[in-house]
């Protein structure tokens, strides 16, 4: 019986991790958006599994429907032809940038790892004792790294969403799903949704006005090279 529960949890953790990696590192933006929606649905399953059905409902509504819907809406409704939003991020990332961000991820993972070791001493004995927490630590590190690495603002916003979900999962995994923890996560989900919505609307405006989907110093052209 216990073995079967472990299988479910491990399977969920692996699925979450794979979807997160796909969403963070896929250059095809629409596909990444759908992966984000799938990731949110998996998160909601995880909440169900952690005995937080209301949180699962909130996650389905806020995380997958509203946030994912917002991303896909902005990606689709941009005016066609001249200023169309690239469905594909062609920005090249230089190697020194990659190297520094890679080091940042490693340092960050070590810090998080140390903190979790203190919190959950049995993790020190066997890393796979809590597969969900393990995957959430990896997701947080990857999300942080992708957020720092990408130039395209939509990918950065998606990275923020994945990172946020990782943080929520870590919170629930370590602190349990008491009512206060659930309330904290709900507030976090709400804020993440509002922030992403503001972000994508702002991005649409920026693409309209400037034709770039990145901040000033890091140019990401929106038109594909002809």
């Amino acid at each position, binding site marked *: 019986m216990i073995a079967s529960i472990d299988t479910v949890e491990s399977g969920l953790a692996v699925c979450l991790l794979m979807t997160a990696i796909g969403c963070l590192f896929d250059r095809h933006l629409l596909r990444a958006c759908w992966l984000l929606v799938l990731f949110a649905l998996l998160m909601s399953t995880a909440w169900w599994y952690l005995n937080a059905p209301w949180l699962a409902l909130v996650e389905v509504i806020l995380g997958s429907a509203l946030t994912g819907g917002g991303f896909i809406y902005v990606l689709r409704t941009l005016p066609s032809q001249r200023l169309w939003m690239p469905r594909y991020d062609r920005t090249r990332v230089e190697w020194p940038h990659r190297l520094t961000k890679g080091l940042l991820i490693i340092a960050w993972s070590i810090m998080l790892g140390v903190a979790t070791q203190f919190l959950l001493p049995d993790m020190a004995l066997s890393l796979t004792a809590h597969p969900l927490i393990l995957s959430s630590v990896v997701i947080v590190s990857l999300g942080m790294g992708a957020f720092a690495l990408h130039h395209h603002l939509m990918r950065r916003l998606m990275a923020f969403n994945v990172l946020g979900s990782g943080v929520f999962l870590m919170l629930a995994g370590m602190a349990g799903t008491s009512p206060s923890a659930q309330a904290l996560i709900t*507030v976090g989900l709400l804020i993440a949704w509002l922030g992403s919505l503001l972000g994508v609307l702002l991005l649409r405006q920026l693409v309209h006005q400037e034709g770039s989907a990145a901040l000033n110093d890091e140019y990401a052209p929106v038109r594909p090279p002809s």
Partner: protein
Amino acid sequence: MIWRFGLYDNTFDPLWMTDWALAAVLLLPMVFGALGAVFRPSRLLPVALACLPILLAGGVMVLDYQQVGLLRWQWEVAGIELTLRLSGLSALMLLITQWTAAAVAVYTPGYLRLTLPNASVRWLWPLMGLLVSALSLIWLAADLLILYAALESMGLAAVGMLLLSGKSAALQAGMRYLLLALVGSLAFLLGVALLMSQWGTLDLIALEARVEPEPLTWVAAALIGAGLALKAALFPLHGWLTPVHENAWTPVSALHAALVIKASLYILMMLWGILLPETLFAPRLVAWLGMLAIVWGGLVAWRADSLKTLIASSTVGQLGYLMVAFPLVLGPNIAPLPLSLAWDGFWLHLMGHALAKAAMFMAAGNLIIATGESSLKALAGTSRRLPLSLLIFGMAAVTLMGLPPSAGFTAKWLLLQSMVLTQQWLAVAALLAGTLLTAAYVFRVFRYSFDETAPRHDYQPLAPGMDAVALCLAVAAFALGLLAHFPLGLLHGGGA
């Protein structure tokens, strides 16, 4: 330390009238903000009338606090405990927030009439209401859940307001601010998650009783500190501040620099007071960064070409004074007298700066509207034509420089005394250098404005009340210094 923030049990229950006042303080700004979106007031009077009940409710709460001491409210909703409390410090911050925000609100109709902004102006009032409600909630919150919710709604409202001018530079700056604020909020949440999983509570009083100095607490404090420092634009995480203020509307800049940044700093001080009592290293680090901030902010402001860049950089430097006070308030083995002096100086400087910075932004906004340009060189000849706006700028600058009789002087005097008593000579040197630099960049503004050989421009006349409101704020910053016994009395009331 912790009683200073009012984190203890109350003796008396609040009166029923105070409950209503609390509801008014928290809800009315949002209600009136929504009404403002519908009616879009273009005159001063309706705005002033709308501010009145909110100010009255705030006054009722402070009076009740003076009579019965700490006020505390606790609810339990679906197993979640929510706690609010009104200590002397929160009462003071509430008053400053409400009056500064009211002044900004009264200033806004005239500003909007003169600058004829785009259609997005209808969002200004609801966002301003949300911002004031969230700020009031931050001063009152006594548990991490409310604190987190209020901090984030304040942050999002602030980002929204800064974007309203719609220029692409503003959008760029706003996007950067939004991304940083969102990541900062996740760092904060991660810190809260660590605390909650280790100590099992979100209530600040319970947390204070349970927390122990161990590596996990330090990691949580570091995460919370990093998130809040990012939001408070503490040096060296201040890079987003200047571009954001450069392109925003004047009332928005005034509110942001005066209050929003201070809220993050308040939370940082309170949470570190709980998590890192008597720690040596972390507050020291903040203080060293603060000394750099004083010098760096002063130098950048001194070299600035545009008026708004100058004021925004001066904010970075002025926050440095507050950072320098961190080890005096949080450090180990600080004797009661220097601790008390530093505590008073810290909050007095924070409040004086809030009033003066809001006044300065308004005066600068008036000068920019009148001359039609934002560069320092365009100020040539304004001394003859716009003496009142310049006078207000100067009065606000007196507070920033810390000359008597302003709040800045009293605050710096208290801080200096505390530093001398604890023999922190480096901090004393930074404080004095900062004063000189502030004088340098302020007098640079006046050098341009007193240029008599300038050609005559046509100046745009200002709407009624725009100078008067800024003057009131500048005078209030003076009054806070002269009548410092009232705010200091409220600050000390926490111990009664």
